[in-house]
Structures are given as C-alpha cells and as structure tokens.
C-alpha cells in the first residue's frame, strides 16, 4: 500500500460523505467572496429562504470593480457601483465579514486570504474565482468555483465533488539570477500546455519551488488554472509556518502549537503514487514572454515569434495563425523587438511586496520610455501599498514616471476604468493574455514584474539577465 499525496491527505480530511463512485461531499473551511460572482448566489439564498450555514467561515472583499484612482468621491461608473453596493448590502444582510473598499485591508481577494491568515495550511479554501489556487501555496486545498457552487457553500459549507487525479511538477535545481516564480510557472505552462493539468490537482515540488519565498510560491500556485488544473498546492515547510505566524486571523497560544504539529504532516509521503509526474530543469529557465493569446503561447525572451508553418498539428497551427493575427506579430520577429504601449504591474499573480520590490529595482533612477503611454503599479492590497510606501517604493515608481494606484484587480481584466484601447500592446504581470482580456482589441504579453518594469524603461522587451539591475 503506497503512501498518500498531499492532495490525498487534504481531500480525505474533508470528506463528509461519499457515494462509493468517487463523488464526495467535501467540507469547506474557508469561503472567500468578491462582488462579481456572488450576487446571484446571495439572491438564490434569499429566494429559497436559506441562511449561510456558518457565517464565520466567510470573508468578503470588493476587488474586481473598484477604481484604482482616488476613491474619496466613490465609484463613478453606476453599473460597477451597483455591483459593489450589492456586496455591501448582502454582507450586511447575511452577517458576513467584509473589508470594504476604503478599509486599509481591502485588496485582491487572493492576496487578502494569506495576508490576513484567513487561509491556513490544511484548510479547504474556495472562492468564485479561478485564481483561488493562490492560497494553495500555504498547503491548503484551494480552488475556484462557479456561482451555483458559491451558493452551495454558503448554504451547506460543503461542495459535491469528484476527486481529481494527482500530478506532481518537480522543478529541479536552481534558477539563474533574475529568474522569478513567474518565469517558473510560465515555463511549466509552456511545457505541459494550458490543458495539461485538466482533471488534476498539481503539487509543485522540487528544489527550485522549496527555495521560493511564500510570495513566489503563491505566484506559482496562482497560475495552476492556466495549466488547466483547478488546484495547485505546495507542501508545508518552516517557511510556510513562519509566514502564517502572527497573522491577524491565525491561531495563537496553545492552538498555534497544535496547529503547527498537524501542519508538519502536510506533505506527500515518500512512497506516494502520482498519476503523472513532470520534471522541469530550473537552470534552463530563461525570462519568459508570452507571444500569443493563451498563456501556453510562451517563449524565452531571447527567442523569436514562432512560425505556424512549422507546426504539424493543423488545429494548433490555425490557433497560432489566429493568435498572431490578433497580436499583430509576424513569425520570426525577435521578442525583444516588440515595442509596448502600456505596462501593468499588478494582479493576484504579481502584486505582493516582493513583486513591487523586484520591479522597483529595475526602474530606480531611470525613466519610463517616452513611447510608453502609461505605466502603472497597482498594489495587491492596502497593506501591500502601505508597506511599499514605508519602503519608499512609491517614490521610485513615481519619479520614474509610473502611476501609483489604489489596490484592486484593475487592468488584469479591465472591469474598472483601467484598460487597453483597441490595438494597444501591454507588458503585464497578470495571468491571462486572452483576446480582449485587458480591454477589447488589447494585446497582452505576460511577464514577471522585473521584466515588465524593464520593458517600461526600454519601451520594448529586454533580457534582464543582460541589463544592469538584474537581481
């Protein structure tokens, strides 16, 4: 009998009931809520005359629609305002804790969970948002759900689920200087493809993952969904425990000691069996840049735009042609020759303090290139923003010509006023380069914070391994 994977352990500990065919009722410890995917769920509760099963398991925060400019006069877009007000109203009516828009603890929901200690190792964590696996970096089983499931969790504290298969992605060895968690995860997606993780929970492991900070691990798990996996997780180690200690909602005293003892078992057993294992050589990872309209369309910065004629699979080749047409790129163009119009540093992928530090290092004492129309930094939370300001990073960005904004999802998906205009090209630290994602007709290139910042300074992509300022 082989041992258990981390996913097996987390799953087994949360099974309330099972039907013998692999469909289980799974208990949910933490439910994070934002304004976009919850209003219809609350309405469903009201219509059925139901109440939340466990109010204290929920934490809500507005993030997708919030303006990132001055909020003192409220939200000017009436449609966004209505959705934000609906969240406030629903949280009041059902008694759910909310960090409102002007609370310093407000921010992107996936950044708030770990930051507040609302997410703990060993928990099941869900949210009506596909980037919920961010929380999996803490050794929690975290995944995105649809609005019907949001209602289900509110009403029952459970979900009806089939267990996924186990995949382990090992990133062996050490990354080169300047290579970040974002480059690692983009390289993984480039390797296994955007559907490579479909049906699996991915455990990220190996020396290069262990050597990442907790924030870097969050960046990796955040993009598990971009590889098709509903959930990404990383085993608990001392770094995890140090990260959680002292967070506002983390346990204290005797409870802390018991928790830590239990958390030390949150790793895959040495003899655990995986349905699929993938090995990636960390030392071979270069800074990554996406060239197409899917996160799997990614290459090292020193490569050139690929040629669909070289692709033997006709469906893939036609997808590439369509992507190149949308992106207005010609095969053979060196990625470093691609000039950009806007730069977005932010999102649940890359808006934590270490991301902002890495970006600031690239721009300190420099200026945003004249050809760049807008370069903006959107911190992931009010507390990240405050920390950055305490460290003087806001001055670094402002003096270089960046805009320094209020926290929220912002131009990752352009539900607020921050967006690309048709045809504009953006170096973005976000997670999706889909057609229209950052604004209708906008063209997105996904990169790390350091790469985005360097692109802002040069007006085009550069290899940060070759330029001064590389970490």
């Amino acid at each position, binding site marked *: 009998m082989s041992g258990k994977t981390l996913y097996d352990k987390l799953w087994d500990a949360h099974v309330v009931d099972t039907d013998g065919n692999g469909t289980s009722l799974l*208990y949910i410890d933490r439910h994070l809520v934002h304004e976009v995917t919850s209003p219809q769920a609350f309405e469903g509760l009201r219509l059925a005359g139901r109440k939340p099963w466990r109010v204290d398991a929920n934490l809500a925060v507005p993030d997708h629609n919030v303006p990132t400019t001055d909020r003192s006069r409220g939200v000017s877009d009436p449609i966004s305002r209505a959705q934000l007000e609906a969240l406030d109203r629903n949280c009041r009516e059902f008694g759910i804790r909310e960090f409102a828009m002007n609370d310093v603890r407000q921010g992107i929901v996936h950044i708030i969970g770990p930051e507040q200690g609302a997410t703990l190792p060993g928990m099941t964590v869900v949210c009506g948002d596909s980037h919920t696996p961010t929380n999996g970096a803490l050794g929690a089983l975290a995944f995105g759900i649809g609005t019907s499931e949001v209602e289900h969790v509110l009403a029952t504290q459970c979900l009806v689920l089939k267990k996924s298969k186990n995949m382990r992605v090992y990133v062996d060895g050490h990354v080169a200087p300047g290579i970040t968690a974002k480059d690692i995860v983009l390289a993984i997606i480039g390797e296994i493809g955007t559907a490579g993780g479909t049906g699996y929970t991915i455990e990220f492991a190996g020396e290069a993952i262990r050597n990442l900070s907790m924030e870097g691990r969050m960046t990796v798990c955040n993009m598990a969904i971009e590889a098709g996996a509903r959930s990404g997780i990383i085993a608990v180690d001392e770094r995890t425990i140090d990260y959680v200690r002292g967070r506002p909602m983390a346990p204290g005293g005797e409870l802390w000691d018991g928790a830590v003892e239990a958390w030390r078992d949150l790793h895959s057993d040495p003899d655990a069996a995986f349905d699929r294992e993938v090995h990636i050589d960390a030392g071979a990872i270069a800074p990554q840049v996406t060239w197409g309209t899917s996160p799997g369309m990614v290459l090292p910065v020193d490569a050139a735009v690929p040629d669909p004629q070289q692709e033997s699979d006709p469906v893939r080749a036609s997808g590439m042609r369509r992507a190149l047409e949308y992106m207005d790129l010609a095969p053979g163009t060196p990625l470093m020759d691609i000039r950009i119009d806007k730069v977005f540093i932010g999102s649940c992928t890359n808006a934590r303090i270490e991301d902002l530090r890495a970006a600031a290092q690239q721009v300190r004492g420099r200026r945003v290139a004249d050809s760049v129309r807008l370069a903006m930094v959107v911190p992931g939370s009010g507390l990240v923003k405050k920390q950055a300001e305490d460290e003087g990073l806001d001055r670094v960005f402002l003096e270089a010509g960046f805009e320094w904004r209020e926290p929220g999802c912002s131009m990752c998906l352009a539900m607020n006023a921050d967006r690309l205009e048709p045809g504009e090209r953006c170096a973005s630290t976000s997670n999706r380069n889909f057609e229209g994602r950052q604004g209708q007709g906008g063209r997105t290139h996904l990169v790390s914070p350091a790469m985005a910042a360097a692109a802002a300074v040069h007006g085009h992509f550069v290899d940060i391994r070759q330029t001064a300022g590389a970490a």
Partner: protein
Amino acid sequence: MEPFIRHKGLLAPIDRPNVDTDAIIPKQYLKSIKRTGFGPNLFDDWRYLDPGGLDIDNATRRRNPDFVLNQPRYQGASILLARENFGCGSSREHAVWALHDAGFRAVIAPSYADIFYSNCFKNGLLPVTLDATEVDRLFREVEATPGYELEVDLEARTVTTPDGAVLRFDIDDFRRETLLKGLDDIGLTLEKQDRIRAYEQRRRREAPWLFADTARGAG
C-alpha cells in the same frame, strides 16, 4: 433546475481550440447582478463589430457577418460544436448562463476546462465529450450540410447524426442523474445535514484552528 433528458436541434460549429470564458462572455457583462439576459452578448467580441456594454443597446451595434453564429444557416442552433479545452480560464458561470440564454442546450467537444464543465451541470446545459476524431467528423459534416441536426440523448448517452450514426459518450453517473431529474444540489446536500454537523463536531475537537472566525482580529 431544468432537466435534460434528450434534445434534438441544429448544430453550430466554433472551430477553434481553447475558447476561454472571457471570449464566451466578456468582463463588462459580469457587472450584471442577474442570472439572465446574457444571451445577446454570447461571444460578444466576435459577434459584433462595435464595442458593447450593459449600458449599450445591442440593436445599435453592427454585427460581424463573418462570425459563424451570425450566419443565417445557424440561426436557431441549440447545440454547439467546439474544439478541445472549451471554457478554459475564468470560473465565471456567466459563460454557461450566456450559452443557455442564447438557446443552447448542449455542447459537444473533445475536452472541457474543469470549472466550466462543472458549471454546465448546475444549469441544465449538457457538455458532451466525444473523441477528437468524432468531433472532426462532425465539423466536416456540419460545414458541408446546411440544416445539420443532432439528437443528444442523455439517458442513452448517445449522439445521433442525421444519417443515423450513433456516437456514444461517457458521463459521470451522479452528474447524469442530477441532470436527468433536474435535481436541486443544495436540497440534496441539506438532506445530509446531520452528517455535516457530526463532521463539524469531530473536526472542532481535532483541529479547532480550522474554525477561526473571520470576525477575529477585525477591529
């Protein structure tokens, strides 16, 4: 929920892989706090030449004549034929609501993204998985044959083509059952509330830190 037992209808093809939920229903429509009304904005960026939004009347927007769902032969289609990894990306259930609201009762593809797949079953939309060669064949036939209709039978787990070919598909028993009967998931789970309470009692003893109150530390 509306049950799905069998359905016969016109097939419409979306011939590209990795169609993401941002493409199925763009972000500006996610500001709606309703479950209905998304149909006219299904595939909005592809369907219209002019920009749209909740505050823009779709009747004033020019339609893209090249987009497949705008072609006269596919009007009234109720089954969508798609390529691999359909519904990838964002978890937005609005994508399923938009398909359903636009009259689609089933989707046929070689594979789906997990969250989209799960969302379909909450809304009476049947996602049928066929292997890539069968899907290829359907693409060829639907493009060659105006008025190409399929019959999708969930009870028998089959898709029948106009020339009588029967394609079989697999589907999880529990999901099939809830869709056939149009069962309310939440109601079913609440029938197990004693088990949920017993689980909570045990876990509160074993791992009390998991029950940390979100109101704690909140000044």
